[in-house]
């Protein structure tokens, strides 16, 4: 399903933003990169200042739970997310800014739901955001 992706807050990605994590800072993620991760939703919370997502991922490293965080509820809604789009048990794909230090995890900047719905952010610090958006919208 095509979904219009709204331009939203980029300051969440800049160290000084209000939507920095209550426990981490977005500064720990590399927003010049996007890495797709597909997995089964074990837990999802659309909350402020950060959404929280646990995906069960199976890849060459094996099967494990990957803890992710992302934008605020407000910015998710402004970028197309709506209640009920992500549920436990769904298989979804998220694009994340990976941790600068490597390893699992990341900051979710966009997602494609089990029904193929897309929502995501466009950031001045994401050089390929427009490309990702266009791809997700089938353009």
């Amino acid at each position, binding site marked *: 399903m095509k979904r219009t992706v709204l331009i939203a*807050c980029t*300051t*969440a990605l800049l160290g*000084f933003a*209000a939507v*920095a994590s209550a426990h981490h800072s977005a500064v720990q993620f590399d927003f010049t990169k996007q890495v797709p991760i597909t997995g089964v939703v074990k837990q999802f919370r659309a*909350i402020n200042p950060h959404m929280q997502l646990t995906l069960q991922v199976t890849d060459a490293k094996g099967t494990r739970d990957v803890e992710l965080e992302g934008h605020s509820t407000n910015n998710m809604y*402004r970028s197309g997310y709506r209640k009920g789009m992500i549920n436990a048990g769904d298989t979804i794909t998220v694009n994340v800014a990976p941790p600068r230090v490597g390893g699992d995890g990341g900051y979710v900047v966009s997602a494609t739901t089990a029904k193929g719905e897309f929502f995501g952010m466009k950031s001045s610090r994401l050089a390929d955001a427009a490309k990702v958006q266009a791809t997700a919208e089938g353009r």
Partner: protein
Amino acid sequence: MNIAALRGVIAGSVAAAACLLLSAQGSAATPRPDFTGVWTNAGAPGIGGATRAAPTPLPFKPQAQARVHAFEELMKPTGDSPGGWCLGYGMPGSMLNSGGYPMEIIQRPDQLTIIYEAHGETRHVYLGKRNAPQADRVPGRNGYSSAHWEGDTLVVETDNLVDQVDQRYAHSDQATVVERYHLEAKPDAQGRRVLVADMVMTDPAFYTAPVSAQKKWAEVPNGRLLPYECAEEVWTQHLEEMAKKAGVPVP
């Protein structure tokens, strides 16, 4: 009363009425602008920060510079910020930045209420007799704001701020902020009203000179702020920890 006196009374009444009418027309000719509405950052949507930032380096006094440097060094490894811990920006950060989220202004003749979506920070700006006596003003991160009109410009003066080294424009509790709000004469390219605030912060304890910046917002037609509960994550985690210690599932 003779005729001459009566004519005098009539003439005087007519003149007084004319004066009142002219006065009323004069007032009607310069109505106060109504800032009521939802406003988002002008220019690139969702991008916070001042439209015109203060020139850098900021004119810190040495002791203030040392404190700011120490704070920045402390935050550097994690990039933590007050907002990251669900604490509002405080002035002038709430006005200049607020994470790029929109704000709503509700205007009455004697009070403006400004709600910043991020953290639900709220400022009450009082005019005239609505103002509290100085002794009754409670210090805080957004201070106490009083205002008056100068033509079609609303001049807001904020004092009773607390020391905030964690601000982009750090300041002491001696800081005062003056904001001058006006609407641009012409709408922007999208036909939206544009609200401009010119800010000057003075702080003899922190700065050797005033700090000036400008912020612009564009009106969001029929806009609505979204709720911004921020402490929910902390509470949820605390609840989970309590349940874990108690050996019970989260209720």
